[in-house]
């Protein structure tokens, strides 16, 4: 995440089984199979509880792939690093892997 430019941050939600496995692994597989740079973290909740300073490194225009936007925004806020404007939060609890990947990968690369 140590980037000035917009990046992609993927949350693996390591400590709970709240994200459907096919979505969680499906998104990761497609990201790994693409030629995009991305950062994957074990668990954003855990980082928030530790007030991890790296949460401050999400640049405007980045995409955060995790869960409900209200929760993700709250986690960054309570860590003392509110998300900057223009960060898109993609919700793996509600969307399918296809839907999420399609809004990240350049057109035509999401297959």
């Amino acid at each position, binding site marked *: 995440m140590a980037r000035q430019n917009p990046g992609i941050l993927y949350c693996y939600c390591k400590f709970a089984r709240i994200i459907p496995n096919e979505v969680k*692994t499906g998104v990761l*597989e497609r990201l*790994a199979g693409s*030629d995009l740079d991305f950062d*994957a973290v*074990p668990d954003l*909740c855990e980082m928030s509880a530790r007030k991890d300073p790296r949460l401050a490194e999400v640049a405007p225009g980045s995409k955060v792939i995790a869960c409900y936007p*209200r929760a*993700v925004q*709250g986690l960054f806020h309570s860590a003392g690093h509110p998300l900057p404007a223009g960060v898109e939060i993609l919700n793996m609890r509600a969307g399918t892997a296809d839907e999420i990947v399609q809004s990240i990968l350049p057109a035509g690369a999401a297959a």
Partner: protein
Amino acid sequence: MTVTAQGSVPAGVIAALLEKGYRVAREAAAEPSVRVNGKAWPAPPGAGAAVAAEVDAYVRGDAPVPAAAWKPWFPVIDYKRCTNCMQCLSFCLFDVYGVSGTGQIEVRNQTNCKTDCPACSRVCPEVAIMFPKYRHGPINGDAVSADDVRREAMKVDISALLGGDIYSLLRDRSEKAKSRFSKERDDERALKERQNCLVTMGKALGVPAEVLASLPSVEEIQAKAEAARQRAEEARKLAGQS
């Protein structure tokens, strides 16, 4: 610790590293490789767990395998909804909440929170408390509907009808149990009273049985509730001034 995965490293390797608690920076590059502190590991397809175990052994060196990690379960406040009413501060028996220098409610001791207990989110009249790992909305951060707000308001009313708040419910039931105990010397019945009360509380607020079993004594609860009320009162005054 961040592990760098370059090129087409399989998703299984990345997932195995995440399982072990490593952050993974994936960089597009021609040749696939996994690098830790400048050292490269071969990352053949399908060898996720093996690569992660090797990386882990290298990073840990002689250090023992850490004990099972804490499940990050704690309340997160949606400040767009919170009205700083301090009900959560008054309610929580485990000192999870605190007040900032400007009198603003905040979650201060995340690790004090009882895993899988969402009770304080149910006392919040504004539906402002989230537990991101909770199963259902809106507590999990899903959008709050007008129905949710009405339901939460009703719950607060119900708890008021039951005797002011949950502490007095617990206290009253316990007092009844105590008097019965002294009259009838029926300790089983007294215990049952308390259990019934806890079951009511558990059902109304979704508190897991393990948390109910670990509640402090009624006297401690009363002392804590009083201290929390005072803190809330002071915080309200402070917030009014600032």
